[in-house]
C-alpha cells in the first residue's frame, strides 16, 4: 500500500509538537504582568487592540479579513502576496484574565499563560496565528464578567483589522479550585459566542481546560463560493482548511455540523469597511460533504467514471479539506447562496453545540416584548417526516420552548400553529445557540373568530340533535296515533333556530373581526377570517338546504296523515330561486 503524500507533513507536525513542548516558556511581551490590586478595566482600552505581533499576510478585498488593519503597523512596504483563504491561518488573540488569589502570584499567572499558549500551539499548530497573553483590560477575570460582556463592549476596541478571533479566558480561583471560562468574539461577524465554563481542582488542569474550552468556543469561518453543479447544495471554502490542526479533536468540520449564516455588505468605495452586517436567523447550512477525496488527475468523484463495486478503488492521493458542501435550510427565501455581487460576502460559521438543549422564544413580530404563550409547535426532524416522528410542544409562559439536541438529527423543523392555521415553518438547530428568538405574526383576531365559530358550530350541533330527537318523538307519536304528542313535537321542531338566525350570528362574528383586522392593517388575518366565515356559511347553507327541508316537510306530512291529523296548510318551504 502506498503511503499518502501527507505523511511527511504529519511527521513534520509531530516534530513541531515535540519542539513546542518546551519546558521553559517564553514570556509574552504584549502581556506584562500586572501587580495585584491594579484597577480593573470594565471595557478594553483603546490600545488593547494593538496586536503584539505583526499582522499576517493580507488578502485582497472580497474575502473575509482581506482589508489591512487600519491601526496595525505595517512592517513591509511592498504588498504581501495573496494567500488563498483556505491557506490562510486564523489571526487569533487569546486574552487570559485572572481573579481570586491567582492575581497575587505573578509567577503562577505567567506559567498559566505560557501553558495555555503552548497548549493552543499543540492543538492548532499552523492553523492559528495565535497571540496569547494576559489581558490588561479584562478584569476581574470571572465567569460573571465574561457573561456580561456584550458585542458593543468589544466592537470598537477589536476591529477586524486587529484580529479575526478574540478568545477571552477567565481563570477564577476559589475555595473549590479553579473555574475556567471562555468566550470567543469574531470580529468579522461581530458576535460573541456563548460562554463555556469548567471547573478544575488544581492549577495544573487550568491550561488544559482553557485550551479545550477555547477549542469548543472557536467558530471556524467558511466563505460561500458557488452552488454545486446540480444547484441543490452550496459549496464553501473553509478558512485555513488546508492547514490541518495537529490535534484531531480540533478539526474545523465534523460530521453533522450545522453552519450559521451571515451576510456582509462591504462598502463599494472602501472595500475594507463593512456597510451592512446581517445575521440570517433561522437559516442554516447542514454540512453534507467535507474532506472530499479527489482523484489524482484532479477530477472530483462526481466527474469520475462509474466503477463497479467489486472493482479496485481508484487511486486517491488528495483530500480536499478546504471545501465544504452543505444544504441550505431556511423558513423562506433568503438572500444566501446566490450571486450576491462583488461586495457581498456570504459567510457561514460553524458553531459547536454549546448545550444539550436550546430555548426558542416565540414573540409577536410587531411587538417583540410580547411572548407568544401556549403556542402549539410540532418538531419534526425533516420537512417530509411522517406524523409519527412529530413531537408536540407548547410554549411556556415566557413564550419559550426547550428543544433537545438530537445527535442523529442536528437540525429539525418547527411547525408553529395557531388553531387551524400554520403560523410558521422554520428550521432550527438545537444546541447551537442557547437561546433564539422567532418572530411570528399576530393571529389573535383570526383565532378569536375560530373560537366563536366553534361555539356557533356547537349550537348547530345542538339544533341538529334536538331536531333528531323531536323527529323521533314525532314518528313514535304518529305510529301510536297520539295526536297531541305529535303536534307538540312538530311545534318543538318549528321552534328550533332557523337559518336566518345562524346567518345573523355569522355576520355578528365577521363584522367586528374584520374591523379589528382593518384597524391594524392585517390583510392576512382579514383574508383568513373571510375564509373561515365562508366555510361556516357553506356548512349552514348545506344543512338548511331547501331540498332537505322539503324532504323533512314531506316526511312530517306523511307522519301527520299517519297520525290521523289533517294536512298542514303549508308544510314545504318554497325552493329559492337559484342565484346567478
Amino acid at each position, binding site marked *: 500500500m502506498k503511503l499518502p503524500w501527507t505523511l511527511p507533513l504529519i511527521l513534520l507536525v509531530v516534530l513541531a509538537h515535540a519542539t513546542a513542548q518546551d519546558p521553559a516558556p517564553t514570556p509574552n511581551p504584549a502581556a506584562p504582568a500586572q501587580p495585584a490590586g491594579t484597577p480593573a478595566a470594565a471595557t478594553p482600552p483603546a490600545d488593547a487592540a494593538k496586536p503584539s505581533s505583526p499582522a499576517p499576510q493580507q488578502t485582497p478585498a472580497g474575502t473575509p479579513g482581506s482589508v489591512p488593519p487600519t491601526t496595525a503597523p505595517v512592517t513591509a512596504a511592498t504588498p504581501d502576496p495573496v494567500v488563498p483563504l483556505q491557506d490562510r491561518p486564523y489571526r487569533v488573540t487569546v486574552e487570559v484574565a485572572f481573579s481570586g488569589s491567582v492575581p497575587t502570584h505573578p509567577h503562577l499567572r505567567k506559567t498559566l499563560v505560557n501553558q495555555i499558549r503552548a497548549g493552543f500551539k499543540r492543538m492548532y499548530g499552523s492553523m492559528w496565528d495565535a497571540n496569547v497573553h494576559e489581558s490588561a483590560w479584562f478584569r476581574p477575570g470571572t465567569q460573571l464578567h465574561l457573561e456580561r460582556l456584550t458585542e458593543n463592549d468589544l466592537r470598537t476596541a477589536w476591529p477586524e483589522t486587529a484580529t479575526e478571533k478574540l478568545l477571552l479566558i477567565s481563570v477564577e480561583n476559589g475555595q473549590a479550585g479553579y473555574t475556567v471560562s471562555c468566550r470567543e468574539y469574531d470580529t468579522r461577524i461581530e458576535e460573541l459566542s456563548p460562554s463555556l465554563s469548567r471547573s478544575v481542582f488544581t492549577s495544573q488542569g487550568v491550561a488544559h481546560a482553557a485550551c479545550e474550552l477555547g477549542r469548543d468556543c472557536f467558530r471556524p469561518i467558511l466563505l460561500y463560493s458557488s452552488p454545486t453543479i446540480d444547484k441543490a447544495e452550496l459549496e464553501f471554502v473553509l478558512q485555513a482548511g488546508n492547514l490541518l490542526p495537529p490535534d484531531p479533536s480540533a478539526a474545523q468540520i465534523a460530521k453533522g455540523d450545522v453552519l450559521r449564516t451571515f451576510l456582509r455588505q462591504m462598502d463599494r468605495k472602501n472595500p475594507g469597511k463593512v456597510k451592512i452586517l446581517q445575521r440570517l436567523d433561522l437559516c442554516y447550512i447542514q454540512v453534507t460533504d467535507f474532506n472530499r477525496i479527489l482523484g489524482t488527475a484532479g477530477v472530483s468523484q462526481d466527474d469520475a467514471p462509474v466503477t463497479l463495486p467489486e472493482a479496485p478503488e481508484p487511486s486517491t492521493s488528495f483530500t480536499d479539506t478546504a471545501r465544504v458542501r452543505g444544504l441550505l435550510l431556511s423558513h423562506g427565501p433568503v438572500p444566501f447562496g446566490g450571486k450576491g455581487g462583488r461586495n457581498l460576502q456570504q459567510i457561514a460559521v460553524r458553531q459547536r453545540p454549546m448545550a444539550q438543549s436550546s430555548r426558542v422564544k416565540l414573540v409577536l413580530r410587531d411587538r417583540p*416584548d*410580547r411572548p407568544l*404563550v401556549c403556542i402549539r409547535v410540532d418538531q419534526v426532524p425533516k420537512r417530509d417526516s411522517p406524523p409519527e416522528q412529530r413531537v408536540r410542544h*407548547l410554549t411556556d*409562559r415566557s413564550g419559550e420552548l426547550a428543544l433537545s439536541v438530537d445527535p442523529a438529527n442536528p437540525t429539525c423543523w418547527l411547525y408553529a400553529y395557531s388553531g387551524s392555521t400554520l403560523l410558521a415553518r422554520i428550521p432550527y438547530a438545537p444546541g447551537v445557540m442557547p437561546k433564539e428568538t422567532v418572530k411570528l405574526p399576530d393571529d389573535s383576531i383570526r383565532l378569536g373568530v375560530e373560537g366563536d365559530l366553534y361555539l356557533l358550530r356547537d349550537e348547530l350541533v345542538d339544533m341538529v340533535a334536538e331536531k333528531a330527537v323531536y323527529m323521533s318523538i314525532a314518528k313514535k307519536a304518529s305510529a301510536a296515533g297520539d295526536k297531541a304528542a305529535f303536534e307538540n313535537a312538530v311545534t318543538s321542531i318549528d321552534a328550533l333556530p332557523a337559518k336566518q338566525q345562524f346567518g345573523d350570528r355569522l355576520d355578528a362574528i365577521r363584522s367586528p373581526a374584520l374591523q379589528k383586522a382593518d384597524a391594524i392593517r392585517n390583510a392576512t388575518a382579514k383574508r383568513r377570517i373571510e375564509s373561515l366565515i365562508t366555510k361556516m356559511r357553506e356548512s349552514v347553507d348545506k344543512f338548511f338546504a331547501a331540498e332537505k327541508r322539503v324532504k323533512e316537510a314531506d316526511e312530517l306530512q306523511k307522519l301527520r296523515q299517519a297520525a290521523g291529523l289533517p294536512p298542514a296548510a303549508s308544510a314545504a318551504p318554497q325552493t329559492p330561486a337559484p342565484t346567478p
Partner: protein
Amino acid sequence: MFCTRFLFNLSLSLSRSGGLPCSPRRGTAVGVLALVAALINCLCNPAAADEKVTRTELPKLTELPIPEAEALLRADADDKEFDWVIIKAANEADRRVAVVNPIFPRPDTLAKQDAEYKKLEASRPQNAKERETRAARLKSLKKLIFTLPGDLTEYAVPVEQVDQIMYFEDLMLLRVDKLLEINDFRTAYELLLRVETEIPGWDKSTPRFERLLMVEAAERAQAGEIYAALAMLDEVFQRNSKNPELPDRMGAIVGPMIDAAAAAEDFRKTRYLIGRIQKLFPQHPLVQATSSRLLQSSTTLLEQATSEFAARKFASAAERARRAELVWPTEGNSRAAYTQYFARHQILRVGINEFNGQSIHPAPLESRERLKELVQASLFEPSSADELTYFRSGFFEIWDPADLGREVLFTLRETRPAWQSQQLFTAAAVADAIGHRIDPQNPLYDTRLASFVSEVAVRSPSQLRIRFSRVPLSIESLLRFPVTRTARNDVPPADAATDAAATQTSPATPNTASPDAPSAPSQPVVVSTRFVQTAANAQESRWVRAIPEPDGFDAGKYHIAEIQERHFADRANMIQAFIRGDIDCIPHLLPWEIESFKASSHQVLPYALPMTHIIVFNPLSDRITNAQMRRALSFAVNRDGILRSTILRDPEARHGRPTSAAWHLASYATEPRQKPPAFNLRLAYALRFAAESQLKIAELTKLTEAARAQATKDKINFDSEVFRKNTKVDYIKLPRLRFVVEPDPLSTAAAERIVTYWQKIGFEVDVIKSDREGQPLADTEWDLCYRQLRMEEPLLELWPVLTNDPTLDMKRLQLFPDWMRQELVGLDYAASFVDAQEKLFRIHNHIAAQAFLIPLWEVDDYAVFRKNVSGLPPKLMSTYHNVERWIIRP
C-alpha cells in the same frame, strides 16, 4: 273469661214495683223492685241474658275475680263498661255483687246522693207541685237506680242495702295493682291512662301512678337505664314531691353514678348529677358531700394555676384554671383569678367534621385552605369581597405605583401591633421571598409572577421597589404568598413544623416544601408564620401563635393564643359538643342547619363568598373525548332538583342557587346574560349519541386508511365508500368514566344523584369516593372531579382550576382548543379592569358553551360561634379570617 251469671235473689227484701219493668219514658221507676235474676254473659254469649229465670242468686264478691286487663280494655273500647254494686250482707264474705251498667253520677255516687238528699231536705218548696216533686226526689235519692247490661229496665235498691259501688275504674285500678306485681308496666300504664281520662286527678289513681313510676324506675335502674329511671323519679317528684321514698330512691340511683363520673374525671357529668338531685332535694346528704369534695379539688387546681401563672407558664395556668372551672364553678376571688388566667392564654376550640388525613382526592380541598391561612401570613391577604375582592397587607405600610404601574414602591411596616403574630421583615427578606418565586431553579418558582416581575430592588431596609415587565392588573392578588427564606441547618424547630404544616395544607402543590425533606439545604421555608402547629393526632390538632402577645396588658386586651381543632367523626356529636360548650366554633354549617342556628342565641356569621360546586375534567384524560360529550354531561344534570332536595334540603332554596360559573355569581367576572345550563335530558342524550358517533367515525376512518394502505400494497382497487358502508364499528362505545368526589357526604350524595342522570342517557360512570387515605389520584386514574371551591380572584385562579394544577403548566392545557388557551393566557395580559372583565365575560360564555367545566350550584356558607367569641369580622373571608384579633371571654 269473664262470664258469670248474675243472680238476683228474690228472697231478699226487695220487691218489684207493679210487677212490671219501669218504662223508660217515665224516667225512674219508683217502688220496691223485684230483683230479677239475670244471667249475663257479657262478652261471650249475650243471648244468655235473655234466659228467663224466675229465681237466681247474685254472685258473691269473694267468688268474683277481678276482670283481666284485656277484658277491661275491650269493654272500655266497645263502650260496654260496667260497675259492681256490692250488696250488704250480715257476713262480709257473703256480700253479693250486681254487675250493672255504669252508674252516674260517679264516682262517689252514694255520697253525692246523700249530699243532695240533705240539701233537698233542707229546702222549702213554694207550692204543692214543688212539694210533690221534692218528695218524689227524696224518695228516689234513698234508692240506687241502675240498669243491667242488655236490659233497659231500671232497677232500684235501697241505699242502705248497698255496701259500696265498685266502679269500672276501680276494677281497672285493682287490675293495675295486680299488673304492677308482675312488672307489666305498659298495660298498667295504659289502664291508668284510661282511668285518668275518665276521672282526671282521681285520688285513687294518683298513688297508683306514683307506684307505677317507682316500680318501673327500680326496674330500669336495675337494667342499667339510669337516666330513664331518673326521669321516672323526676315524674314522681312532679306528681308528689312529698313522696317519702323518693330521696332514698334518688340517692340510691345517682350516688354510684356520681362516684363513677368523679372517678372518671367527668366533672361535667358529676356536676350535672349533683344538680339533678339538688334541684329536687337541696338538702340531700349526697349533694352536700359531693359538692364540698369537688369544690376542694377545684380550689386546689386553681392554686396550682396561680403558681404557674406566677412562673409565666400561661398555657398550663390557663389549662389548669379551665380544669378548675370544669371541676367546680369558681366564685368570688377565684372567679377573678380564673378570668385572668383564661384571658392570658385564650384557646379557640374548633369542631371539625371532615375526612382527616391525606385524601386521594386529586384536587386541593377548599376546606384545607383554612390551615394554610392559619400557618402562613401572606404579603397580601383578602380582607373583604363583594363584586371584587379587596386585600390588605400586614407587611406593607404603603405601596405606590409609579411609571404608569410598571413600578411599585413598597414601604414596609416598621412597627408591629401587639396582636400580630408574625414578625416584621426587612425589604431584603421580602425581596428574597420574591426572588425564590421568580427563580426557575427554585422549587417555589412561580411562572406567572416571573413573567410579570423584571426587577426587584431593595432601596432601604424598609423600602422595596418592584419593576414589572408588564403592568399587572392586581398587584395584591399577584403577591399572595408568604415570606420564605432558604433553609439552613440552623432552622429552628418551629419553622420546620410550620413548613410541614404548610405542606400538609396544600398537598396538591408540588412546589411546596416536602415534609419528607423539610431541612434540605436549598429548600425554601416559610418564615412569615402566623400560628405554629404544636401537636396533632387523629382527634385533635393544636396551633399556637408564632409570636406570643407581650406581658403587661390588661386581661381584656389579649387575644386568642391557641387554636385547637377537634375532629368529630359524627356531625351530631359535634353539634352536641358545640351546644354543651365543649367547642367554640363550627366553621361550616350545612345548609339545613343554618336557620336553626340563626334562631338560637349563637353567632351565625356568613362567609363573604359562597361555596361553588363544580365538576372539572381531567385535562390529561383521554376518555373525555370531545365537546359534545362534555356538553351531554352538563345538560343531563338536574341542578335545581338536586340542589333543593339533596344539597339544601329546602324546597325554597334560600341558601343556594344553580350557577353558571366557577366563581360566585356576584363577581365582576360573571357575564350577566349567562344562565346556568338547562336540564335537558333529550338534548343530552342526543349529544351523547353524537359523541359516540364521532368516535365511530374516527374508528371507521382509521380502518379505511389501513385498508387503503393494504390495498395499495396488494395492488388492488379500493373503494372507500363501499368499504365504509360495509364496515361495522358498533363495538365502539363511549369509555367508562371515573368520577372522583370530594370526601364530603354532601358532595357524595349530590354526585350519586348526578350519576343517576348520566346513567339515564347511557353513560357508564364509576364514582370514586375520596374518603380514604392515600396519595392523590394520578392523572391516569380519574376523568371527572367534583370540587367545592371559593374563587376570590377569577382572573388569576381560573387557570389552576381548569387545569387542576397550581404550577400553571402549559402541557395541562392540551384539553382546550388553541383559541381557549389563548383566552386563558390573555387574562394575564389584561390591561385594565374593563379589559379583564370583557375577557372574563368571553371566557365565561365559552366555558358554558363548550362545557370546559360543569358548573353546578353555589351554596351560602356560614360559620357559627358561641357568644363568648368576639372580635369577629362581619363577613368571613375564610375560616380563620383575622383570627389573631379574636377574643374569647370566659
